[in-house]
């Protein structure tokens, strides 16, 4: 195995790792604020990928299709929150685990019915569909675009959480919900906004990852466990911990792909297990 290949896998790991951490942020803030584990996150990720596939068939414009996919998933997540998830706030955590897992199951069934069982694929926009090559080092430009996009969205999320009123409410609400309510803030609405925001991040991740891999019905349930692994390694409630953890998980996946492709995603869970044993609060978690 030559050095170029290793370098390529490293870059690949970093870019998918950043995307994973971007998706996980939505998962993490939903848990932090509303105390529900939203396994339906994976469903929105898969729907984002499928929506962009369908929109590409019609418009053939990547950026516009991405916008449509994110908006569509936002709309769906609004209804899901109103009808189902609303009944789970303040209840036991296992309730939300079972119910959101069922949402994931229903969504993947609907995907199978609407789009069929066979995997789909889309190609990235033409100007990104090139390969940067120097000697034995070949690297698709799309990976760089992916990493840059994820990093940019990451910074935007960080600004929203730390510098805006909404972010302050979310942070305060994670600490003590009742006290925020006594200040005259409608927490129900904040929960809804938060849920839709998280789902849109998942859809964005799905849309960005779509050109890299085959779009298939089971992709939702696979990503949601990876999200969980990223959140556990990074520590609940830490944004930069999540980013670091995403890169660690991404790198471990891309390196194991060299050795044994089928075991790649499974290895991420071993990393998680090691962290749970040695550092249960995560890399930068507060406890």
């Amino acid at each position, binding site marked *: 195995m030559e050095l170029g290949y290793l370098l390529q896998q490293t870059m690949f790991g970093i870019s998918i790792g950043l995307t994973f951490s971007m998706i996980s942020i939505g998962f993490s803030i939903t848990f932090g604020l509303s105390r529900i*584990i939203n396994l339906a996150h994976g469903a929105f990720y898969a729907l984002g990928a499928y929506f962009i596939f369908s929109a590409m068939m019609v418009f053939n414009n990547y950026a516009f299709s991405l916008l449509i996919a994110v908006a569509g998933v936002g709309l769906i997540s609004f209804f899901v929150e109103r009808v*189902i998830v609303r009944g789970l706030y303040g209840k036991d955590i*296992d309730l939300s685990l079972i*119910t959101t897992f*069922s949402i994931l*199951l229903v969504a993947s*069934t609907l995907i199978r019915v609407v789009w069929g069982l066979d995997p789909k694929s889309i190609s990235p926009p033409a100007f990104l569909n090139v390969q940067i090559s120097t000697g034995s080092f070949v690297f698709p430009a799309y990976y760089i675009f992916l990493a840059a996009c994820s990093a940019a969205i990451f910074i935007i999320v960080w600004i929203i959480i730390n510098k805006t009123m909404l972010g302050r409410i979310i942070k305060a609400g994670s600490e003590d919900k009742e006290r925020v309510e006594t200040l005259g803030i409608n927490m129900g609405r904040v929960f809804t906004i938060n849920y839709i925001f998280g789902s849109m991040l998942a859809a964005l991740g799905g849309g960005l990852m779509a050109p890299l891999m085959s779009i298939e019905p089971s992709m939702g*349930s696979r990503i949601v466990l990876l999200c*969980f692994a990223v959140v556990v390694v990074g520590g609940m409630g830490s944004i930069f911990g999540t980013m670091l953890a995403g890169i660690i998980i991404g790198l471990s996946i891309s390196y194991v792909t060299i050795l044994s492709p089928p075991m790649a*995603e499974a290895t991420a869970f071993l990393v998680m297990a090691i962290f749970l044993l040695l550092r249960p609060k995560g890399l930068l978690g507060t406890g």
Partner: protein
Amino acid sequence: MSFAKKIMKIDLPQIAGVAAFFCILPFFLPRTLSIQVLFYGLLALAFDIMYGYGHLLSFGHALLFGAGAYGAAISFNFLTGNPIASISVGIAFAVVIAALIGPIALRKRDPYFSLVLMAFNVFFYQLFVAPLAPWTGSDMGLTITKIESFGILNFSNKTFLYYTMILLSIVLMILTKLFMKSRFGALLVATSESERKVESLGYSSFRVKYYSLLFSAFLSGISGALFATFLGYSGIDFVSPTFNIMIVFIALIGGSGTFLGPFIGSFIYLALSYSLTVVLGWHSSVYLDGIIGLVIIIVMLRFRGGLYRYLYKVVKDVYVSEPIR
């Protein structure tokens, strides 16, 4: 208290009822289906020890069931045809897996416990599909080729085998009842309320949960191993991560935290899946997940008690038993 008195204290009519039900079931259904109802019920009971009593939602019992099934099947094909030895290998496989992942999964309570178990389930699923393919037969499943009759376990006579399985299950059910009635069962229920109070009584809450998980793994492993032995086949579906939500469905729809609930649920699950196959043909498995998901959502939001508790309200004037939780 003597052992006989302990046996008398458990609710024997319930077990007798379950046994009688499974004795007459083969007259209405094919034997393979009846045995499926029985073992899925036992598996859901094992799941329910953790969830209904200990309030620890597990998304990993498919792994334990599958480990039992594959352990037995692999041992039959590659080690020995002796059923007792092979079934023991299956049970040991399930218990060893639980013993290894237990300390990791039990570090924290609910979202961690269930999702860590699920993650390990995916890990082992991938392991079974690809790197271990020569032994597990990948996604085709493993057909048991070499099987010897041993004592009462006579494999040429399926009817006799069926009733032997029921006899074994009765022993397992009594064991489960004894476990739940013992001090350990009470402590497990107590940990679900407050771990700190259990600790202050001088018990290690981790140890209580760990041993309960091991017992649960033993029960799932043995039902997996016996099921594979009866069918002569172990399928990759048994370890599939989505099978977990079916186990949750079985336990919830019947009534979690009750003894009869899992068996009612398992009957409903198989009735649903087979009637769907009859109505929609072989493509029904596509829709089955979605329908089960919808039912779970409705049950979780509106009818959390499960079917057993509703039935119990009807018969409570003539028959008194306790839904424990």
